[in-house]
């Protein structure tokens, strides 16, 4: 039965991440498209199931951000069953979510985005990875990264009730409180996470900000789009990952909209393109004007930089200092530099760590009042949280018995779909001239979307265990001139 083969990732490219770059007669870029596979049948899969199952099902959509789905789903159930969780339950959920944001942002910076800057945008591909990062920052730093992620994940596991896919959220609260013993551990982890985030920001400052070449790349025009920005904010317009209103600012930074989860369909519509399975959300009140930026285009962005742009600051002191510093250096707010997503991610890492510590130190976190039992008849519920990759919407409809009759999800990255396409095209146009393409230049095209950390179709884990990417460069008659495959 068994056969031995050498895995050829190319064979799996069909239906995976794909960039198509079309050149004109002169060999310059005409259009560029980013395509991803379609996952089918989630709505059908969910229909007919009890709504209470959704917080356990939806985390399985994605192996990267299960905790964010669990949180959005839990909030959607609160809304569906018309029940408000007691304050300690909300704090426990936010504690778990903060731990998750911290570990995910750490992963992205050190393993994915970081190599471009710490090792160098045009460094040889073989060095531009985590091993190259460790070469630069040292073995101890590598151990720190692994260790803090493990400790943060431990909070999710302990409080979430299960490794990877948390199961703690119930309509009206959570399944268990925090023990005194665990709380001490969480406080310790929070303290270490704050120190780690400061270390990461320091490394960013030393390696990236002190290097003029890198700063020029970050602020350069090819990585810039003036769009609207969206993110959850608290009552003071400070960034919040778990709760609050959805705020949208225009490309000049003025508040354009501020709305509740329940009103999201009044503000967001989705545009369909024949060449993509992804629908492209845009602001309804501005309208779809194509893949263009500016005030007249309804394209908006989410995730770290967008969240910071859409807010008036950070709710924790150290992160606020870093927030101000970032905008001072970038020349004010909003910042439109796509590569500054990496920087914003580190500011958020510090906020997540500080918030985690605050919540763990809060006496109320030990309160055993963690659930209000729902008594109302369920009908419709919407839950919104900030996932690492942006605003995440869960919307369920049920019959009177709580059986799912309809599901709509806008997953974080989808909000950024139009911008990702625009960013790739702009970078390709700026970098590829007269048909001349090098590996380093292509990496710089990839950097345009790596900043967003796109996570699409991330539910599949088949070998080789990562999502390959194919870049096709075509002439004006769509003949393939060159194909580059990232395995």
């Amino acid at each position, binding site marked *: 039965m068994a056969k031995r083969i050498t895995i050829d990732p190319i064979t799996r490219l069909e239906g995976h991440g794909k960039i198509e770059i079309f050149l004109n007669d002169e060999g310059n870029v005409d259009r560029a498209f980013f395509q991803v596979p379609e996952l089918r049948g989630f709505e059908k899969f969910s229909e007919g199931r009890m709504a209470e199952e959704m917080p356990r099902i939806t985390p399985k959509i994605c192996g990267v951000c299960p905790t964010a789905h669990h949180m959005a789903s839990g909030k959607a159930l609160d809304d569906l069953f018309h029940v408000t969780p007691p304050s300690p339950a909300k704090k426990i959920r936010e504690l778990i979510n903060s731990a998750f944001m911290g570990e995910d942002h750490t992963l992205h910076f050190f393993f994915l985005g970081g190599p471009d800057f710490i090792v160098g945008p045009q460094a040889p591909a073989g060095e531009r990875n985590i091993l190259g990062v460790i070469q630069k920052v040292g073995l101890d730093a590598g151990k720190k990264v692994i260790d803090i992620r493990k400790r943060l994940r431990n909070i999710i596991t302990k409080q979430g009730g299960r490794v990877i896919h948390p199961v703690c959220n119930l309509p009206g609260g959570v399944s268990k409180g925090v023990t005194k013993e665990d709380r001490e551990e969480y406080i310790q982890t929070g303290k270490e996470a704050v120190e780690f985030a400061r270390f990461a920001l320091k490394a960013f400052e030393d390696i990236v900000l002190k290097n003029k070449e890198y700063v020029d790349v970050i602020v350069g025009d090819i990585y810039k789009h003036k769009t609207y920005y969206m993110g959850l904010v608290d009552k003071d317009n400070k960034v919040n990952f778990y709760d609050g209103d959805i705020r949208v600012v225009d490309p000049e930074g003025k508040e354009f909209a501020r709305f509740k989860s329940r009103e999201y369909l009044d503000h967001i519509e989705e545009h369909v393109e024949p060449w993509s399975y992804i629908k492209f959300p845009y602001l309804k009140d501005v309208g779809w004007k194509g893949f263009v930026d500016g005030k007249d285009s309804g394209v908006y962005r989410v995730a770290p930089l967008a969240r910071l742009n859409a807010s008036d600051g950070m709710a924790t002191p150290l992160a606020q200092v870093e927030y101000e510093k970032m905008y001072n250096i970038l020349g004010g707010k909003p910042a439109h530099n796509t590569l500054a997503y990496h920087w914003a991610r580190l500011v958020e890492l510090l906020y997540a760590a500080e918030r985690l510590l605050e919540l763990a130190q809060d006496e109320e976190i030990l309160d055993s009042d963690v659930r209000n039992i729902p008594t109302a008849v369920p009908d419709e519920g919407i839950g919104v949280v900030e996932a690492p990759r942006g605003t995440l919407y869960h919307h369920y409809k049920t019959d009177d018995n709580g059986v799912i009759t309809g599901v709509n999800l806008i997953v974080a990255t989808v909000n950024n779909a139009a911008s990702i396409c625009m960013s790739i095209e702009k970078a390709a146009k700026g970098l590829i001239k007269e048909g001349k393409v090098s590996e380093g230049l292509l990496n710089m095209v990839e950097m345009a979307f790596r900043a967003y950390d796109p996570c699409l179709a*991330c539910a599949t884990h088949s*070998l080789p265990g990562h999502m390959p990417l194919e870049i096709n460069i075509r002439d004006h008659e769509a003949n393939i001139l060159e194909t580059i495959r*990232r395995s």
Partner: protein
Amino acid sequence: MKTLILGIGNPILTDDAVGICVADEIKKLSLPDVEVIETSLAGISLLDYIVGYERLIIIDSIKTEKEVPGTLYKLKLEDISNSATTSYSHGINIKTAIGLGRKLGYKIPKIIEIYAIEIKDNTTFGEGCTPAVKSKIPGIVDEITKIIKSDQPQHLP
């Protein structure tokens, strides 16, 4: 030999779950000195699990479209391409994760075997594998179990 079996896959994405299904069947056999973990995680997050074991057996799905669904491949770590350049959060594959673990001085299993099962559909949400894959699971379980019991690794790194 302290052995870890990692069944990898997404439990609600049809054939993507095959690694988990096979691992689950092996778990029921309660083999001595063998621990079985089913996970949806990939890449670097797997490091948390594998440290401290002497032998690691990974069971996962694969889509080459060159063989019939249900075909079992026995692979070495070297057969998996190195993800030198990655673009996604789960873009660091097991090979890079193991390389990193060794570099950082963690106790990484000396023996690593990868069993990959050819699949048909990993883009439709659904519980349970397609019939073609499902029908092969008992035979695959028997074959992998036999190898584990014989204590003769198929490949050395």
